[in-house]
């Protein structure tokens, strides 16, 4: 634990970060920025795992392992999403979600 910092403060930071990510997810139209907002949300969740692990169960590494799996899954997700973005750009020369309006090109 960090001396002088309570769990509630860390959780507040992660909550604010999560909702900033939600805001970006709702207002942006560019696929890549949506992806980046998603990363913010995922990281807020990862901070929660780590903080709970450190403050409530310091003897077990379970929260750390969840954060590790979360990072691995986020890497998978980004790799696929970027493959899709590049393919999309090749077909319609844009990466805005509103311009993707055909089912089959």
């Amino acid at each position, binding site marked *: 634990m960090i001396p002088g910092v309570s769990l509630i403060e860390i959780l507040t930071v992660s909550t*604010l970060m999560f909702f900033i990510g939600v805001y970006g997810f709702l207002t942006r139209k560019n696929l890549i920025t949506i992806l980046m907002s998603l990363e913010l949300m995922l990281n807020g969740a990862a901070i929660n795992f780590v903080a709970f692990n450190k403050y409530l169960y310091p003897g077990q590494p379970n929260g750390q392992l969840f954060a590790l799996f979360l990072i691995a899954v986020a890497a998978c997700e980004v790799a*696929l999403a*970027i493959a899709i973005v590049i393919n999309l750009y090749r077909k319609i020369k844009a990466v805005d979600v509103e311009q993707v309006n055909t089912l089959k090109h």
Partner: protein
Amino acid sequence: MEKIIFYILSAVILSLSLMSVLSRKLLRSAVYLFGVLTAIAGFYFLIGYHFLGAVQLTVYAGGIVVLIIFSILLTHEIDHQMPTPEWSRVAVAGALCVAGAVMFIQLLQGSLFSRVEVPEQSDLNTLGNTLLNPGGGGYLLPFEVVSILLLAVMIGAIVIAKQRHSVDNSSQEKQAP
């Protein structure tokens, strides 16, 4: 000292993530995201989970952000500016987010977390042993599942992003006199 560092880090995390969400230049917001992820790695180092911090730096800051920057480099012009979203969307999203954040923080303030005082162990060895333990609270099965997921994603990404030569050839043949 740790307290001051924590406040600096959280200020950096919050301000850079706000800038990343609000910036109108795409690459700049990717750079702000890079700053956020590095600051979170710093937070992990501060809390004492060095392995997790290093993994965060390697995978997130060194891998995912580089991938995102690559995709921006491939699909955008340098003077591209994103249009500002219309105000109704901003208002609805902002109201939702503020309401949600206030609600969650209210919930947090009211809750009591019971702390368990356990003497801390050297974390890297327990981490490795738990990760590769086939039974008794071990995480071997998720580990293998994640590795299969990574393999599947690698193949999937290659298949999706690969240029389809057959389609191009047929279209060229049609155009040829």
